[in-house]
């Protein structure tokens, strides 16, 4: 007997009797004897809740989480409204499966519909799936979508200014999926995509299925993609953009740039950092690509009583129907985190999200100006426009700065070179926090 396994000795006897068996061993009579483990697992003894708590608290105490977080690189410390964890831990949402039975899953189906609406609005595109694991795998799916849509073409271009993590995962998928992935170089200082090089690559004999660029890019820079979509489309390729969901309230959207596909991370919608997950990835497309989109899509319809209701739709794209011909293998996704994003965007509304972008912009620009004023650090790519994240070159080594800052409870950014940090500011860092970081770097 265990607190999660309710069968008493009497229950077991009755169940075995119904099966015409005398012991539980008979249930495994068809397992070759040499395959039976025949010993307890070496994982320790059953614990009470107190013992489990003690175990985890001891682990927790071995962490030294910074109180102030200037690290970003896709994942940001944002305000997390108290209402969200409260709602998403309701077990009607938390303990449900994928909504295959729409009659008793309208709660899930309806929030997915709201989610799709909000993410499509953010990216400026027409269709959103629900959902992707996170940004790197979403970008890999975008690459495979380009190849699937192009049918015969197997070549995809990705800009060197896309984040390192995204390029690494896209390269992994390309290697095994059989996609010829070529990197579009950046201009000399690395700051933005070399558009001339891209034009040359598009004009080469080997036709291109898709082009992947980022906004903001790996250094937080907002690249000017004017004319890019036309150039890509003229080569009969698709344009995919990776982005950070929350930024899209302020910056030009993939839809406005003329992109066919938008993918990225939505952790920035107030999700806890949780040492890497669960986060949320998104994938949006133009309506023309709707029937090739990977993963779940919910649509509105009516029921027998004429009520407006929601169902999983266009399922002929998915693995459980199409098997090896499916557009993707994705099945379980980040379901509950899409509810998180939906509630977050409901609470912030358009204005709140804009204010959050504005706070990040002000803080980041103030921080960069103050760092440059110390003479100990300078913009790695001076003069480039950015929202709330930027790269700085520092006199002291990045390791030294990180070590000194951590001693004061500050994670000063992400090291992207021996003397280079990627620093992000959100609404969570106060003026005092910014001043402390400036002091640390000035004195390192």
């Amino acid at each position, binding site marked *: 007997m265990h607190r999660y396994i309710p*069968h008493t000795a009497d229950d077991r006897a009755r169940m075995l009797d119904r*099966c015409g068996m005398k012991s539980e061993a008979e249930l495994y009579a068809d397992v070759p004897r040499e395959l039976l*483990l025949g010993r307890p*697992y070496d994982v*320790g*003894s*059953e614990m009470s809740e107190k013992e489990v708590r003690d*175990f*985890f608290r001891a682990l*927790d105490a071995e962490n*030294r989480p910074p109180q102030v977080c200037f690290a970003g690189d896709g*994942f940001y410390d944002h305000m997390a*409204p108290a209402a969200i964890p409260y709602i998403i831990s309701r*077990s*009607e949402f*938390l303990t449900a*499966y*994928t909504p*295959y039975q729409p009659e008793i899953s*309208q*709660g899930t189906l309806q929030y997915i519909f*709201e989610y799709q609406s909000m993410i*499509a*609005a953010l990216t400026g595109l027409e269709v959103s799936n*629900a959902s992707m694991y996170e940004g790197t*795998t979403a970008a890999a799916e975008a690459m495979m979508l380009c190849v699937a849509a192009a049918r015969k073409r197997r070549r995809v271009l990705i800009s060197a200014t896309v984040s390192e993590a995204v390029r*690494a995962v896209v390269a992994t998928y390309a290697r095994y999926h*059989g996609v010829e992935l070529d990197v579009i170089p950046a201009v000399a200082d690395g700051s933005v995509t070399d558009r001339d090089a891209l034009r040359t690559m598009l004009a080469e004999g080997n036709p291109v299925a898709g082009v992947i660029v980022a906004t903001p890019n790996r250094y937080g820079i*907002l690249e000017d993609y004017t004319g890019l979509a036309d150039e890509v489309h003229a080569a009969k390729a698709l344009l995919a953009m990776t982005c950070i969901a929350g930024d899209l309230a*302020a*910056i030009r*959207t993939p*839809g406005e740039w003329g992109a066919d596909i938008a993918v990225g991370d939505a952790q920035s919608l107030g999700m*806890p*950092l949780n040492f890497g*997950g669960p986060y949320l990835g998104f994938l949006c497309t133009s309506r023309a690509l709707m029937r090739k989109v990977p993963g779940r899509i919910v649509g*509105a319809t*009516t029921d027998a*009583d004429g009520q407006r209701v929601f*169902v999983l739709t266009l*399922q002929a794209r998915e693995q459980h129907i199409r098997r090896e011909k499916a557009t993707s*293998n*994705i*099945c*379980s996704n980040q*379901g*509950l985190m899409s509810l998180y994003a939906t*509630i977050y965007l*409901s*609470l912030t*509304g358009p*204005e*709140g999200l804009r204010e959050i*972008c*504005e*706070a990040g912009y002000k*803080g980041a620009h103030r921080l960069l100006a103050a760092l440059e004023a110390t003479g100990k650090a300078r913009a790695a790519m001076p003069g480039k426009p950015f929202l709330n994240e930027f790269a700085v070159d520092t006199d002291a080594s990045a390791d030294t700065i990180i070590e000194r800052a951590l001693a004061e409870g500050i994670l000063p950014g992400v090291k992207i070179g021996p003397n280079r940090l990627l620093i992000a500011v959100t609404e*969570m860092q*106060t003026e005092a926090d*910014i001043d402390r970081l400036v002091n640390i770097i000035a004195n390192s």
Partner: protein
Amino acid sequence: MNRTFYDKLIFELSHKGRKGCRVPAAVASDDSTASLPAALRREKPLLLPEVDEPTVVRHYTNLSTNNFGVDTGFYPLGSCTMKYNPKINEEMASLPGMSALHPATPASHAQGALKAYWTLQSMLSEIGGMSEFSLNPFAGAHGELTGLMVIRAYHDANGDTARDTVIIPDSAHGTNPASSAVAGLKVVEVKSLPDGTVDVEALKPLLGPHVAAMMMTNPNTLGIFESRIPEITRMVHDCGALMYYDGANLNPLVGVARPGDMGFDVMHINLHKTFSTPHGGGGPGSGPVGVRKGLEQFLPNPRVVRNDDGTFDLVTTDTALGSVSATLGNFAVQLRALSYILSLGHEGLAEVGPMATLAANYIKESLRDKYLLGVDRVCKHEFVFDGLIDKSTGVTTLNIAKRLLDNGFHAPTIYFPLLFHESLMIEPTETESLETIDAFIDVMREIAREAAEEPEKVLNAPLNTPIRKPDETAAALNPKVTYQDLLANG
């Protein structure tokens, strides 16, 4: 769940000027995003709802009452292992020292988190009979894909680059062939015998120097243990290919037998099935991938290692298959699974497989006089009926599934596996009491009686769910997938 349907969208509760949060004051600055070049700024209005916090909370609370979860009632969904999700796991997944950690936090400041990861991967290795697990994959299908990449990286490292084919039983989960295709591998199906197990004679001619791997779940999707597995793994290994274990059906083996001991080289586990983490309406899951000794170097970057002094580090290597994520995966899901394993210990785990198996056989034996058994053998955690024995009434598996909803149960998995026309796949798990199981059996018998005596009741089901018979054809013909679409279509 509530029988009254709550049908508002959050957009329909919006009133211009309302807000549901207050953003912390920005630092003092005259600068603003207005100084960005116009070409880089968003112009399009942002269609998000404008609602206050009480309205948001009430809206989503009402929405939740349209839903059915494991905490609401019995969820006998075959191959999904919808077991109880312990509440202590939720508490352990939200400790402040864990949840505040940015993934770029240096290892020196995240020792507890790295230790949690390492501890769970070692426990899964013990349970799976493997050498090392990577917890980085985000879900079962992602684990399958990662595992197949491990296999390809292994063959590549041996210069064995012509192996481009995966053999998969015709009863396999849809993700198996789909993951193979994403991994760039061709799929060849091996037929099942009438008893649902792999036809070993049919397998022989499929093997050769072009085969990279064979993918199996054991027990298979009919819930039947593949007793000839030692012979199958030997044949596959003899041709130079590796064996992949789809962990979707691991639950009946917990405490009993290990895929590694059966000869599997690579496997994944669905923490959201076997290890009790909640499904969340479709995720987040977690799909750790384990490998036998000799394949560890191919696991995805980064790996968590324990140093000789007992500290933990992240390492990245060139031998790895590459990376499949930006981070160490769905970390807070991993914490829940660790909490579950600790709560059960070896004593509790030893009961998981046997009790899940006993419950499935008990249901099978209690209904076999009314429902047609696909395969008449001792099953493991799940089994498949091919609809009612008496098919003269016209009542189908879909009708039975919907009638179960009327009676307060979730439906079993239907029309899968594809081996039967009327598949009804039932998996009770070990956490349902005998009273619940008996109540389910009673309802299933009552549905069989209704089908014979008053079939309209079943044919017209569901009769008392909050919504009935949604028009899925219309949804697919004219897709309305956003609120903007609804506005445009009136």
